[in-house]
Protein backbone atom coordinates (compact mmCIF):
# COMPACT_ATOMS: atom_id res chain seq x y z
CA UNK A 1 0.00 0.00 0.00
CA UNK A 2 2.82 2.35 0.94
CA UNK A 3 4.47 1.63 -2.39
CA UNK A 4 1.34 2.69 -4.22
CA UNK A 5 1.28 6.01 -2.41
CA UNK A 6 4.99 6.36 -3.10
CA UNK A 7 4.45 5.74 -6.81
CA UNK A 8 1.97 8.59 -6.92
CA UNK A 9 4.74 11.10 -6.30
CA UNK A 10 6.62 9.95 -9.37
CA UNK A 11 3.80 9.33 -11.80
CA UNK A 12 1.56 12.33 -11.19
CA UNK A 13 3.98 14.98 -12.51
CA UNK A 14 4.46 12.91 -15.69
CA UNK A 15 0.73 12.62 -16.19
CA UNK A 16 0.37 16.33 -15.72
CA UNK A 17 3.04 17.05 -18.34
CA UNK A 18 1.41 14.64 -20.77
CA UNK A 19 -1.90 16.40 -20.31
CA UNK A 20 -0.36 19.75 -21.18
CA UNK A 21 1.53 18.61 -24.27
CA UNK A 22 -0.26 18.08 -27.57
CA UNK A 23 -1.04 14.45 -28.36
CA UNK A 24 1.59 12.81 -30.50
CA UNK A 25 -1.00 11.16 -32.75
CA UNK A 26 -0.76 12.09 -36.42
CA UNK A 27 -4.31 12.25 -37.69
CA UNK A 28 -3.59 10.87 -41.13
CA UNK A 29 -5.67 10.71 -43.36
CA UNK A 30 -7.74 13.37 -41.66
CA UNK A 31 -4.69 15.53 -41.17
CA UNK A 32 -1.42 16.24 -43.01
CA UNK A 33 1.41 13.75 -43.13
CA UNK A 34 4.97 14.92 -43.57
CA UNK A 35 7.73 13.12 -45.37
CA UNK A 36 11.34 14.18 -44.97
CA UNK A 37 13.28 15.07 -48.15
CA UNK A 38 15.23 11.82 -48.39
CA UNK A 39 12.25 9.55 -47.85
CA UNK A 40 12.42 6.57 -50.20
CA UNK A 41 9.13 6.68 -52.04
CA UNK A 42 7.94 6.11 -55.56
CA UNK A 43 10.53 5.55 -58.28
CA UNK A 44 10.61 7.86 -61.29
CA UNK A 45 12.71 7.59 -64.39
CA UNK A 46 14.22 10.58 -66.12
CA UNK A 47 13.36 9.51 -69.61
CA UNK A 48 16.03 11.51 -71.46
CA UNK A 49 18.87 10.06 -69.45
CA UNK A 50 17.88 6.40 -69.56
CA UNK A 51 20.01 4.41 -72.01
CA UNK A 52 18.41 1.03 -71.44
CA UNK A 53 21.63 -0.50 -70.12
CA UNK A 54 19.87 -2.70 -67.61
CA UNK A 55 22.13 -2.12 -64.57
CA UNK A 56 19.13 -1.22 -62.42
CA UNK A 57 17.23 -4.29 -63.61
CA UNK A 58 20.15 -6.52 -62.73
CA UNK A 59 20.58 -5.08 -59.25
CA UNK A 60 16.95 -4.87 -58.15
CA UNK A 61 16.42 -7.45 -55.38
CA UNK A 62 12.67 -7.58 -55.92
CA UNK A 63 12.50 -7.87 -59.73
CA UNK A 64 10.49 -4.68 -59.86
CA UNK A 65 12.10 -3.40 -63.06
CA UNK A 66 11.84 -5.05 -66.43
CA UNK A 67 13.55 -4.12 -69.67
CA UNK A 68 12.03 -5.07 -73.02
CA UNK A 69 14.01 -4.30 -76.13
CA UNK A 70 12.13 -4.05 -79.41
CA UNK A 71 15.23 -3.37 -81.47
CA UNK A 72 18.54 -1.61 -81.03
CA UNK A 73 16.99 1.84 -80.48
CA UNK A 74 13.60 1.18 -78.90
CA UNK A 75 13.20 -0.26 -75.44
CA UNK A 76 10.65 -0.13 -72.68
CA UNK A 77 11.41 0.00 -69.01
CA UNK A 78 8.52 -1.24 -66.91
CA UNK A 79 8.34 -0.46 -63.22
CA UNK A 80 6.10 -2.43 -60.82
CA UNK A 81 5.46 -0.38 -57.69
CA UNK A 82 3.73 -3.34 -56.08
CA UNK A 83 6.88 -5.47 -56.24
CA UNK A 84 9.23 -2.65 -55.35
CA UNK A 85 10.87 -2.78 -51.90
CA UNK A 86 11.82 0.94 -51.99
CA UNK A 87 15.42 0.11 -51.17
CA UNK A 88 17.08 2.60 -53.52
CA UNK A 89 19.56 0.15 -55.07
CA UNK A 90 18.51 1.16 -58.58
CA UNK A 91 19.32 4.79 -57.81
CA UNK A 92 22.80 3.76 -56.62
CA UNK A 93 23.45 1.40 -59.55
CA UNK A 94 22.45 3.75 -62.35
CA UNK A 95 25.52 5.42 -63.78
CA UNK A 96 23.56 8.06 -65.68
CA UNK A 97 21.36 9.38 -62.89
CA UNK A 98 18.27 8.32 -64.80
CA UNK A 99 16.29 6.64 -62.03
CA UNK A 100 15.47 8.34 -58.75
CA UNK A 101 13.35 7.77 -55.67
CA UNK A 102 10.97 10.61 -54.90
CA UNK A 103 9.48 11.19 -51.52
CA UNK A 104 5.96 10.42 -52.64
CA UNK A 105 4.37 7.54 -50.90
CA UNK A 106 2.64 5.02 -53.08
CA UNK A 107 -1.12 4.80 -52.74
CA UNK A 108 -2.88 1.48 -52.93
CA UNK A 109 -4.98 0.71 -56.00
CA UNK A 110 -7.82 -1.75 -56.42
CA UNK A 111 -6.50 -3.21 -59.67
CA UNK A 112 -3.10 -4.03 -61.00
CA UNK A 113 -3.26 -1.65 -63.97
CA UNK A 114 -2.59 1.71 -62.25
CA UNK A 115 0.34 0.07 -60.50
CA UNK A 116 2.20 -0.90 -63.62
CA UNK A 117 4.12 2.10 -64.84
CA UNK A 118 5.43 2.11 -68.34
CA UNK A 119 8.48 4.23 -68.88
CA UNK A 120 10.08 4.67 -72.20
CA UNK A 121 12.51 7.10 -73.68
CA UNK A 122 11.42 10.09 -75.73
CA UNK A 123 12.10 8.46 -79.09
CA UNK A 124 9.83 8.38 -82.12
CA UNK A 125 6.60 10.29 -82.64
CA UNK A 126 3.12 10.03 -81.18
CA UNK A 127 2.01 7.30 -83.54
CA UNK A 128 4.90 5.05 -82.73
CA UNK A 129 4.41 5.63 -79.03
CA UNK A 130 0.72 4.71 -79.25
CA UNK A 131 1.49 1.62 -81.31
CA UNK A 132 4.22 0.33 -79.02
CA UNK A 133 2.20 1.14 -75.88
CA UNK A 134 -0.71 -1.08 -76.92
CA UNK A 135 1.74 -3.77 -78.02
CA UNK A 136 3.46 -3.83 -74.65
CA UNK A 137 0.16 -3.73 -72.73
CA UNK A 138 -0.89 -6.96 -74.40
CA UNK A 139 2.43 -8.56 -73.63
CA UNK A 140 2.12 -7.36 -70.05
CA UNK A 141 -1.31 -8.86 -69.62
CA UNK A 142 0.24 -12.23 -70.43
CA UNK A 143 3.39 -11.94 -68.37
CA UNK A 144 2.08 -10.42 -65.16
CA UNK A 145 -1.17 -12.30 -64.61
Amino acid sequence: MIEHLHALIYMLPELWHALLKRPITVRYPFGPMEFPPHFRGRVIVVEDACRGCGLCVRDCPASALELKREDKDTFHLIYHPDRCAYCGQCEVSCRFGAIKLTNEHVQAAPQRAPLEVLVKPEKGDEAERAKTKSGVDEAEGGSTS
Partner: protein
Amino acid sequence: MTRMTIPIGPQHPALKEPLSFLLTVEGEYVIDSSLRLGYVHRGLERLCQERTYVQNVHVLERVCGICSHVHSTAYCQGVEALTELEIPPRALYLRTLLCELERIHSHMLWLGVLAELIGFTTIFMYTWRDREIVLDIMEEFSGGRVAHAVNLVGGVRVDVEQEHARSILTRLDDLAQQVDTFLDMIQHERTFQARTRNVGHLSVEQVHRYCVVGPVARASGVDVDMRRDAPYAAYDQLDFQVITAQQGDVWARTMVRSLETIESLHICRQLLQNLPSGDLTVRAPRRVPAGEVVSRAEAPRGEVIYYIRSDGSDKPARIKIRTPTLTTLITLPDQLRGVNTADVPTVLAGVDLCIACADR
Protein backbone atom coordinates in the same frame (compact mmCIF):
# COMPACT_ATOMS: atom_id res chain seq x y z
CA MET B 1 -5.11 -29.81 -8.40
CA THR B 2 -6.02 -30.35 -12.01
CA ARG B 3 -3.48 -29.88 -14.76
CA MET B 4 -4.40 -27.69 -17.66
CA THR B 5 -2.63 -27.00 -20.90
CA ILE B 6 -2.66 -23.36 -21.78
CA PRO B 7 -1.62 -22.54 -25.35
CA ILE B 8 0.39 -19.35 -25.71
CA GLY B 9 0.39 -18.63 -29.42
CA PRO B 10 0.70 -18.75 -32.31
CA GLN B 11 -1.74 -15.86 -31.86
CA HIS B 12 -1.64 -14.42 -28.38
CA PRO B 13 -1.78 -10.89 -27.03
CA ALA B 14 1.50 -11.47 -25.18
CA LEU B 15 3.46 -12.24 -28.33
CA LYS B 16 4.46 -9.80 -30.99
CA GLU B 17 5.42 -12.53 -33.42
CA PRO B 18 4.04 -16.04 -33.88
CA LEU B 19 5.50 -18.66 -31.60
CA SER B 20 3.84 -21.67 -30.08
CA PHE B 21 4.15 -22.47 -26.41
CA LEU B 22 2.18 -25.16 -24.67
CA LEU B 23 2.25 -24.56 -20.94
CA THR B 24 1.30 -27.31 -18.53
CA VAL B 25 -0.18 -25.48 -15.58
CA GLU B 26 -1.17 -26.84 -12.19
CA GLY B 27 -3.22 -24.36 -10.20
CA GLU B 28 -1.42 -21.09 -10.82
CA TYR B 29 2.08 -22.47 -11.41
CA VAL B 30 3.71 -23.62 -14.63
CA ILE B 31 5.19 -27.09 -14.46
CA ASP B 32 6.41 -27.64 -17.96
CA SER B 33 6.39 -26.06 -21.37
CA SER B 34 7.13 -27.02 -24.92
CA LEU B 35 8.23 -24.73 -27.67
CA ARG B 36 7.59 -24.75 -31.38
CA LEU B 37 9.13 -22.40 -33.95
CA GLY B 38 8.98 -21.95 -37.64
CA TYR B 39 5.86 -19.90 -38.20
CA VAL B 40 7.77 -17.07 -39.85
CA HIS B 41 10.36 -19.15 -41.66
CA ARG B 42 10.81 -17.54 -45.06
CA GLY B 43 13.81 -19.48 -46.31
CA LEU B 44 15.97 -16.37 -46.59
CA GLU B 45 19.24 -18.26 -46.37
CA ARG B 46 18.27 -20.26 -49.45
CA LEU B 47 16.97 -17.15 -51.19
CA CYS B 48 20.35 -15.50 -50.75
CA GLN B 49 21.96 -18.19 -52.86
CA GLU B 50 19.76 -17.13 -55.79
CA ARG B 51 20.58 -13.43 -55.57
CA THR B 52 23.78 -11.56 -56.26
CA TYR B 53 25.92 -10.06 -53.53
CA VAL B 54 24.57 -6.60 -54.31
CA GLN B 55 20.96 -7.70 -54.07
CA ASN B 56 21.59 -9.67 -50.88
CA VAL B 57 22.31 -6.52 -48.90
CA HIS B 58 18.64 -5.67 -49.18
CA VAL B 59 17.35 -9.19 -48.80
CA LEU B 60 19.24 -9.73 -45.56
CA GLU B 61 18.07 -6.45 -44.15
CA ARG B 62 14.61 -7.93 -44.11
CA VAL B 63 15.53 -10.83 -41.85
CA CYS B 64 14.34 -8.73 -38.95
CA GLY B 65 12.53 -5.45 -38.61
CA ILE B 66 14.27 -4.01 -35.62
CA CYS B 67 17.79 -5.32 -36.08
CA SER B 68 17.78 -4.75 -39.83
CA HIS B 69 20.86 -2.55 -40.05
CA VAL B 70 22.97 -4.88 -37.93
CA HIS B 71 22.24 -7.79 -40.24
CA SER B 72 23.26 -5.84 -43.32
CA THR B 73 26.34 -4.51 -41.48
CA ALA B 74 27.50 -8.00 -40.54
CA TYR B 75 26.93 -9.19 -44.11
CA CYS B 76 28.72 -6.26 -45.72
CA GLN B 77 31.64 -6.67 -43.35
CA GLY B 78 31.92 -10.32 -44.28
CA VAL B 79 31.87 -9.64 -48.03
CA GLU B 80 34.30 -6.76 -47.65
CA ALA B 81 36.65 -9.06 -45.78
CA LEU B 82 36.44 -11.60 -48.61
CA THR B 83 37.19 -8.95 -51.22
CA GLU B 84 39.78 -7.32 -48.95
CA LEU B 85 38.34 -3.82 -49.24
CA GLU B 86 39.45 -0.93 -47.08
CA ILE B 87 36.37 1.01 -46.03
CA PRO B 88 36.77 4.80 -45.61
CA PRO B 89 36.51 5.91 -41.94
CA ARG B 90 33.57 8.22 -42.56
CA ALA B 91 31.53 5.30 -43.79
CA LEU B 92 32.48 3.28 -40.73
CA TYR B 93 31.39 6.06 -38.42
CA LEU B 94 28.05 6.44 -40.18
CA ARG B 95 27.46 2.70 -40.04
CA THR B 96 28.16 2.71 -36.31
CA LEU B 97 25.88 5.70 -35.81
CA LEU B 98 22.97 3.86 -37.30
CA CYS B 99 23.80 0.71 -35.32
CA GLU B 100 23.60 2.67 -32.11
CA LEU B 101 20.44 4.51 -33.09
CA GLU B 102 18.88 1.15 -33.81
CA ARG B 103 19.93 -0.11 -30.40
CA ILE B 104 18.24 2.86 -28.74
CA HIS B 105 15.11 2.27 -30.81
CA SER B 106 15.02 -1.41 -29.96
CA HIS B 107 15.46 -0.93 -26.23
CA MET B 108 12.81 1.77 -26.03
CA LEU B 109 10.38 -0.38 -27.94
CA TRP B 110 11.15 -3.26 -25.64
CA LEU B 111 10.54 -1.20 -22.50
CA GLY B 112 7.13 -0.23 -23.81
CA VAL B 113 6.25 -3.81 -24.65
CA LEU B 114 7.30 -5.02 -21.21
CA ALA B 115 5.24 -2.32 -19.54
CA GLU B 116 2.21 -3.22 -21.61
CA LEU B 117 2.44 -6.87 -20.75
CA ILE B 118 2.63 -6.00 -17.08
CA GLY B 119 -0.50 -3.91 -17.49
CA PHE B 120 1.21 -0.55 -17.26
CA THR B 121 -0.15 0.96 -20.43
CA THR B 122 0.91 4.47 -19.50
CA ILE B 123 4.63 3.74 -19.68
CA PHE B 124 4.03 1.90 -22.96
CA MET B 125 2.46 5.03 -24.43
CA TYR B 126 5.18 7.30 -23.10
CA THR B 127 8.16 5.24 -24.27
CA TRP B 128 6.65 4.79 -27.72
CA ARG B 129 5.97 8.50 -27.90
CA ASP B 130 9.61 9.27 -27.21
CA ARG B 131 10.79 6.54 -29.53
CA GLU B 132 9.32 8.67 -32.32
CA ILE B 133 12.25 11.06 -31.84
CA VAL B 134 14.70 8.31 -32.77
CA LEU B 135 12.53 7.11 -35.62
CA ASP B 136 12.33 10.62 -37.05
CA ILE B 137 16.12 10.95 -36.86
CA MET B 138 16.55 7.64 -38.65
CA GLU B 139 14.00 8.56 -41.27
CA GLU B 140 15.70 11.85 -42.07
CA PHE B 141 19.07 10.20 -42.17
CA SER B 142 18.32 7.11 -44.20
CA GLY B 143 14.91 7.54 -45.80
CA GLY B 144 13.04 4.84 -43.93
CA ARG B 145 11.93 4.36 -40.37
CA VAL B 146 12.70 0.68 -40.10
CA ALA B 147 14.27 -0.55 -43.35
CA HIS B 148 17.22 1.75 -43.66
CA ALA B 149 19.04 0.49 -46.79
CA VAL B 150 22.10 2.49 -45.80
CA ASN B 151 24.78 -0.17 -46.26
CA LEU B 152 26.38 -1.04 -49.56
CA VAL B 153 29.16 -3.50 -50.11
CA GLY B 154 31.99 -1.01 -49.85
CA GLY B 155 30.51 1.72 -47.69
CA VAL B 156 27.30 3.61 -47.09
CA ARG B 157 24.80 5.28 -49.35
CA VAL B 158 23.86 8.43 -47.40
CA ASP B 159 25.67 11.28 -45.76
CA VAL B 160 25.17 13.68 -42.85
CA GLU B 161 25.91 17.38 -43.24
CA GLN B 162 27.18 19.59 -40.43
CA GLU B 163 23.88 21.25 -39.75
CA HIS B 164 21.98 18.02 -39.84
CA ALA B 165 24.47 16.56 -37.36
CA ARG B 166 23.87 19.49 -35.01
CA SER B 167 20.11 19.07 -35.15
CA ILE B 168 20.47 15.36 -34.46
CA LEU B 169 22.62 16.15 -31.42
CA THR B 170 19.98 18.50 -30.03
CA ARG B 171 17.26 15.92 -30.40
CA LEU B 172 19.41 13.23 -28.85
CA ASP B 173 19.85 15.49 -25.83
CA ASP B 174 16.06 15.77 -25.52
CA LEU B 175 15.81 12.03 -25.77
CA ALA B 176 18.49 11.57 -23.10
CA GLN B 177 16.41 13.66 -20.75
CA GLN B 178 13.32 11.57 -21.42
CA VAL B 179 15.20 8.32 -20.92
CA ASP B 180 16.52 9.61 -17.61
CA THR B 181 12.94 10.37 -16.57
CA PHE B 182 11.85 6.85 -17.44
CA LEU B 183 14.74 5.37 -15.55
CA ASP B 184 13.79 7.44 -12.55
CA MET B 185 10.16 6.43 -12.89
CA ILE B 186 10.74 2.73 -13.08
CA GLN B 187 13.28 2.73 -10.29
CA HIS B 188 10.80 4.35 -7.95
CA GLU B 189 7.64 2.80 -9.28
CA ARG B 190 7.19 -0.05 -6.84
CA THR B 191 4.34 -1.76 -8.67
CA PHE B 192 6.63 -2.19 -11.71
CA GLN B 193 9.35 -3.70 -9.56
CA ALA B 194 6.89 -5.93 -7.72
CA ARG B 195 6.00 -7.53 -11.05
CA THR B 196 9.55 -7.92 -12.37
CA ARG B 197 11.79 -8.78 -9.44
CA ASN B 198 12.67 -12.44 -8.88
CA VAL B 199 10.83 -13.46 -12.01
CA GLY B 200 12.49 -15.49 -14.75
CA HIS B 201 15.82 -16.22 -13.13
CA LEU B 202 18.85 -17.41 -15.11
CA SER B 203 22.03 -18.44 -13.31
CA VAL B 204 25.55 -18.01 -14.67
CA GLU B 205 25.83 -21.76 -15.13
CA GLN B 206 22.69 -21.81 -17.28
CA VAL B 207 23.99 -18.90 -19.34
CA HIS B 208 27.15 -20.82 -20.14
CA ARG B 209 25.29 -24.06 -20.82
CA TYR B 210 22.91 -22.53 -23.34
CA CYS B 211 25.45 -20.07 -24.80
CA VAL B 212 23.18 -17.14 -24.08
CA VAL B 213 24.39 -13.79 -25.40
CA GLY B 214 23.33 -10.20 -25.20
CA PRO B 215 21.60 -8.25 -22.45
CA VAL B 216 20.14 -11.48 -21.02
CA ALA B 217 23.64 -12.82 -20.40
CA ARG B 218 24.92 -9.49 -19.14
CA ALA B 219 22.05 -9.29 -16.67
CA SER B 220 23.21 -12.55 -15.09
CA GLY B 221 26.71 -11.22 -14.61
CA VAL B 222 28.42 -12.66 -17.72
CA ASP B 223 30.50 -9.88 -19.24
CA VAL B 224 30.30 -10.45 -23.00
CA ASP B 225 29.84 -7.76 -25.65
CA MET B 226 31.03 -7.99 -29.25
CA ARG B 227 31.54 -4.25 -29.48
CA ARG B 228 34.35 -4.49 -26.98
CA ASP B 229 35.55 -8.07 -27.40
CA ALA B 230 35.72 -8.19 -31.23
CA PRO B 231 35.47 -4.57 -32.35
CA TYR B 232 33.98 -3.93 -35.77
CA ALA B 233 33.11 -0.75 -37.69
CA ALA B 234 34.26 2.22 -35.62
CA TYR B 235 33.95 0.70 -32.15
CA ASP B 236 37.67 0.43 -31.53
CA GLN B 237 37.90 4.22 -31.57
CA LEU B 238 35.05 4.82 -29.16
CA ASP B 239 34.91 5.03 -25.42
CA PHE B 240 31.97 3.25 -23.80
CA GLN B 241 31.09 0.96 -20.92
CA VAL B 242 29.54 -2.47 -20.96
CA ILE B 243 26.68 -2.68 -18.47
CA THR B 244 26.22 -5.81 -16.38
CA ALA B 245 24.01 -6.73 -13.47
CA GLN B 246 24.06 -9.60 -11.03
CA GLN B 247 20.55 -10.76 -10.20
CA GLY B 248 19.61 -12.36 -13.52
CA ASP B 249 15.88 -11.67 -13.30
CA VAL B 250 13.64 -9.52 -15.48
CA TRP B 251 14.34 -6.46 -13.34
CA ALA B 252 18.09 -6.85 -13.94
CA ARG B 253 17.46 -7.10 -17.68
CA THR B 254 15.35 -3.94 -17.54
CA MET B 255 18.14 -2.07 -15.82
CA VAL B 256 20.79 -3.38 -18.21
CA ARG B 257 18.82 -2.35 -21.27
CA SER B 258 17.88 1.06 -19.89
CA LEU B 259 21.45 1.87 -18.94
CA GLU B 260 22.62 0.58 -22.32
CA THR B 261 20.30 3.08 -23.96
CA ILE B 262 22.03 5.88 -22.11
CA GLU B 263 25.44 4.49 -23.12
CA SER B 264 24.29 4.37 -26.75
CA LEU B 265 23.26 8.00 -26.60
CA HIS B 266 26.73 8.78 -25.31
CA ILE B 267 28.29 6.82 -28.20
CA CYS B 268 26.12 8.63 -30.75
CA ARG B 269 27.30 11.95 -29.40
CA GLN B 270 30.93 10.88 -29.73
CA LEU B 271 30.36 9.72 -33.29
CA LEU B 272 28.67 12.91 -34.42
CA GLN B 273 31.20 15.17 -32.80
CA ASN B 274 34.23 13.36 -34.25
CA LEU B 275 32.97 12.52 -37.72
CA PRO B 276 35.99 12.23 -40.05
CA SER B 277 35.76 13.63 -43.55
CA GLY B 278 36.25 11.59 -46.69
CA ASP B 279 34.53 9.34 -49.17
CA LEU B 280 31.49 7.31 -48.49
CA THR B 281 32.20 4.21 -50.59
CA VAL B 282 34.92 2.34 -52.37
CA ARG B 283 34.25 0.50 -55.57
CA ALA B 284 33.47 -3.13 -54.87
CA PRO B 285 33.96 -5.92 -57.41
CA ARG B 286 30.86 -7.81 -58.45
CA ARG B 287 32.57 -11.19 -58.34
CA VAL B 288 33.82 -12.11 -54.91
CA PRO B 289 36.94 -14.32 -54.74
CA ALA B 290 36.40 -17.82 -53.37
CA GLY B 291 36.75 -18.27 -49.63
CA GLU B 292 34.79 -18.32 -46.42
CA VAL B 293 34.44 -15.76 -43.68
CA VAL B 294 32.77 -15.45 -40.27
CA SER B 295 31.52 -11.98 -39.43
CA ARG B 296 30.11 -10.99 -36.05
CA ALA B 297 28.19 -7.95 -34.86
CA GLU B 298 26.37 -6.92 -31.69
CA ALA B 299 22.68 -6.64 -32.40
CA PRO B 300 20.42 -5.12 -29.75
CA ARG B 301 19.64 -8.65 -28.61
CA GLY B 302 23.16 -10.04 -28.61
CA GLU B 303 25.78 -11.44 -30.91
CA VAL B 304 24.78 -12.19 -34.48
CA ILE B 305 27.10 -14.43 -36.48
CA TYR B 306 27.28 -14.60 -40.28
CA TYR B 307 29.11 -17.35 -42.10
CA ILE B 308 29.56 -16.58 -45.81
CA ARG B 309 31.13 -18.96 -48.30
CA SER B 310 31.77 -17.85 -51.83
CA ASP B 311 32.85 -19.85 -54.86
CA GLY B 312 34.15 -17.03 -57.03
CA SER B 313 30.92 -16.16 -58.84
CA ASP B 314 28.65 -13.20 -58.21
CA LYS B 315 26.21 -15.23 -56.07
CA PRO B 316 27.13 -16.56 -52.62
CA ALA B 317 27.42 -20.30 -52.21
CA ARG B 318 26.13 -20.37 -48.63
CA ILE B 319 25.14 -17.83 -46.03
CA LYS B 320 24.41 -19.07 -42.55
CA ILE B 321 23.03 -16.76 -39.88
CA ARG B 322 23.04 -17.45 -36.13
CA THR B 323 20.84 -14.89 -34.43
CA PRO B 324 20.87 -14.15 -30.67
CA THR B 325 17.22 -14.95 -30.13
CA LEU B 326 17.88 -18.62 -30.87
CA THR B 327 20.06 -18.84 -27.79
CA THR B 328 17.58 -17.15 -25.48
CA LEU B 329 14.62 -19.15 -26.75
CA ILE B 330 16.19 -22.40 -25.60
CA THR B 331 16.35 -21.10 -22.03
CA LEU B 332 12.64 -20.38 -21.86
CA PRO B 333 11.41 -23.82 -20.70
CA ASP B 334 13.94 -23.60 -17.87
CA GLN B 335 12.93 -20.07 -16.96
CA LEU B 336 9.23 -20.83 -17.02
CA ARG B 337 9.37 -23.77 -14.65
CA GLY B 338 7.73 -22.86 -11.35
CA VAL B 339 6.63 -19.44 -12.51
CA ASN B 340 3.21 -18.04 -11.70
CA THR B 341 0.92 -18.01 -14.75
CA ALA B 342 0.50 -14.27 -14.43
CA ASP B 343 4.25 -13.86 -14.80
CA VAL B 344 4.54 -15.81 -18.04
CA PRO B 345 4.13 -12.74 -20.28
CA THR B 346 6.67 -10.90 -18.14
CA VAL B 347 9.23 -13.66 -18.65
CA LEU B 348 8.51 -13.78 -22.38
CA ALA B 349 8.94 -10.05 -22.64
CA GLY B 350 12.06 -10.09 -20.50
CA VAL B 351 14.08 -12.10 -22.98
CA ASP B 352 13.13 -9.74 -25.81
CA LEU B 353 12.20 -12.28 -28.44
CA CYS B 354 12.59 -11.52 -32.10
CA ILE B 355 11.08 -14.55 -33.78
CA ALA B 356 11.62 -13.19 -37.27
CA CYS B 357 15.34 -13.27 -36.53
CA ALA B 358 15.12 -16.76 -35.08
CA ASP B 359 13.13 -18.22 -37.95
CA ARG B 360 14.72 -16.33 -40.83
